[in-house]
């Protein structure tokens, strides 16, 4: 190996490693945030919800969204369909016919402990705040990978208009900073929604399950689902009967991209070097073959000349 190639290789290694470290994801960030922080949560007791939709109205008022009609007749019509959240409604309440009768279920961004939407975002426009709120900032460029990767399909994009935004529940982060409760929790007449620290709410949920034998099924939805979420559900019937997906597993969405992310720096460092090495070997090989050919040709020429001389 001559000096030039050596320098090239050293250069490539350095560039590769530098690029690798520069572009190496700090994958553990989400986990760290998750381990150290006390997140805030809402415990949703579906046995207490009466389907009054006051949370929906309060949410719309707090977030400058179109105010829904929550009169009795309107509700009756609305509950006929299963609604999804949308860019104009951060929270929706749906009615499910279950083995134990009618159950109303409020439904909004789950505020995952390790949100898929956040790990998707290439500019961190979506943030998991230290307080547990998953919020959105205006440096977003609208790639909508967050919409693609939310396991619950709860990130909503505003499709109409030029200056568009991302719309979803932010657990009333603005109100929280002012020391107020989330608007929906404040509006709920039956305390079906309860705001507090996640740890405390998990305990409260378990206490309710223990103190009312037979009333609840013995699990809290959101304790482990997709790595744990901040909206926690108590239910009297199996969760899949009230529209909560039970097939998602406990692995958080960011973990699905971990294999790739951890391979990135290695590829960055190793591939160029391997390429140079192969190119070098091939070159040496080719040179050798060429030299041999030249030598042979030269010898033959000499022989020919000698023959001529002899003649």
């Amino acid at each position, binding site marked *: 190996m001559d000096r030039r190639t050596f320098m090239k290789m050293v250069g490539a290694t350095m560039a590769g490693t530098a690029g690798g470290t520069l572009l190496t994801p700090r994958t553990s960030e989400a986990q760290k945030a998750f381990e150290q922080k006390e997140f805030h949560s809402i415990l949703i007791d579906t046995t207490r919800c009466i389907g009054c939709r006051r949370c929906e109205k309060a949410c719309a008022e707090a977030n400058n969204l179109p105010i829904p009609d929550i009169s009795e007749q309107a509700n009756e019509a609305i509950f006929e369909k299963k609604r999804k959240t949308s860019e104009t409604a951060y929270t929706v309440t749906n009615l499910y016919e279950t083995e134990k009768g009618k159950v109303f279920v409020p439904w909004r961004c789950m505020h995952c402990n390790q949100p898929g939407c956040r790990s998707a975002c290439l500019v961190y426009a979506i943030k998991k705040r230290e307080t547990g709120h998953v919020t959105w900032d205006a440096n977003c460029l609208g790639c909508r990978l967050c919409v693609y990767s939310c*396991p619950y399909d709860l990130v909503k994009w505003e499709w109409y*208009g030029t200056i568009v935004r991302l719309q979803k529940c932010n657990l009333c982060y603005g109100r929280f900073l002012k020391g107020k409760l989330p608007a929906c929790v404040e509006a709920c007449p039956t305390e079906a929604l309860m705001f507090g620290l996640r740890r405390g709410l998990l305990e409260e949920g378990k206490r309710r399950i223990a103190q009312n034998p037979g009333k609840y099924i013995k699990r809290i939805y959101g304790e482990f689902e997709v790595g744990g979420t901040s909206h926690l559900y108590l239910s009297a019937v199996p969760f899949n009967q009230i529209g909560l997906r039970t097939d998602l597993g406990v692995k958080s969405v960011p973990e699905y991209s971990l294999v790739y992310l951890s391979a990135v720096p290695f590829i960055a460092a190793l591939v160029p070097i391997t390429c140079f090495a192969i190119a070098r070997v091939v070159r040496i090989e080719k040179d050798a073959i060429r030299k041999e050919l030249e030598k042979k040709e030269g010898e033959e020429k000499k022989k020919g000349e000698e023959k001529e001389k002899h003649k």
Partner: protein
Amino acid sequence: MSAEKTEKVEIKNLRDFWSFFWSELKPKGPIFTPFNIISAPVIVIGLALIVYRLAIGLGDTTNMNNDFPWGIWKGAIVMSGIAIAGGGYTLGFVVYITGMERFRPILRETVLFAFLCYVFYAPALLIEIGRWWNFQNPFIGYEFGVSSVLFIVAWHFVLYMITLGIEFSPAAAEWLGMKRVRKIVGATAVGAVALGVMLSIHHQAGLGALISMGHAKLHPLWYTEFIPGLFFFSSIFAGPSMMIIVSSVTQKVFSNRVDEEYRKSHADIVVGLGKMCAGVMFAYLFLTFILAHHEHDLQYINTPMGYWWLTEVVGLGLIPMLLFINGVQNRNLSTIQLAAILAVMGAALNRFNCAFIAYNWFLPLEARYSPYWMEVVVTFGITFLMIWIFRFAINRMHVLSRQPEWAAAIDKH
């Protein structure tokens, strides 16, 4: 002919450059060909629609919605486009790194094609993102999402575009008669290729990693942990397959620009590429089936989505592979070309499936996504514009022919 003219021109200052450039802008062939008559209005309408979309938003110009956030702009133009541009790095690797010189005649064409693909996806992405005025944020913004797959993909996308530009720049320098520049960029070849291979592995696989984050909403037959690997593999055969098609077309259409050496070796090159594609496709399909079996997804085979999966994997996967093998054994070019077309369609269909067909597949049919006419027109407009530029370059530069003597002389030193 321009080729001879270029060798005489030596550009010394900006004025020379502009006058030369102006003279070169004149069309080189007949203007009213069927292709031009069809493509010109599509391009004009497409450009108008792009302006319209930037002004009024995505809702009125596309059929995308919150259930299907990615439509054909991402699925067709970007995702499958990147896959079929994969020839840029595979052939670069084959020629420059492993030293298989017999593929060299096709190399410049491949690099040009790949480069144009990337250059034209960038604006396609620009109209695709919702808040396009923020597009620079991942690059010069104040917040970098370093643990986001898309962040890595975006960076490698841009870096690779530059790398491809460097790889192609010798041809441009020859066209402009810039000897000094030609000398400098000519020396970077191996380095640029090695860098390009690395960047390509990253973003080809990265696109797969993006898809794997939608695991909760992707049909189990398509979702596997190894999507990044599958995306990478399929780009290795989709790229060369595309080049079989492109080179066969350019051989015919630009026959006056093709030099003797390339014309003679074209059949060999196609057979060689066919061999390569057959091998890689075998590995890809093997992996696909193993993964489907391993993850117990084969239980879905007997459903509508299962049939669709078979269409992709057997109809546009296994069959083209067998055709490739057959064509290579009999040295039958038309079989190989047919196989290449099917293989490219298969790879593209795979991307479509991941972006919107197998995504949220449990929704009822009437709620599913199908492209709006404006999306289709814009897609075609961008593609046609790309073909125009491709033609422009081929007609003026040494793309299908050997470099001029003076450039070859520079390379020797």
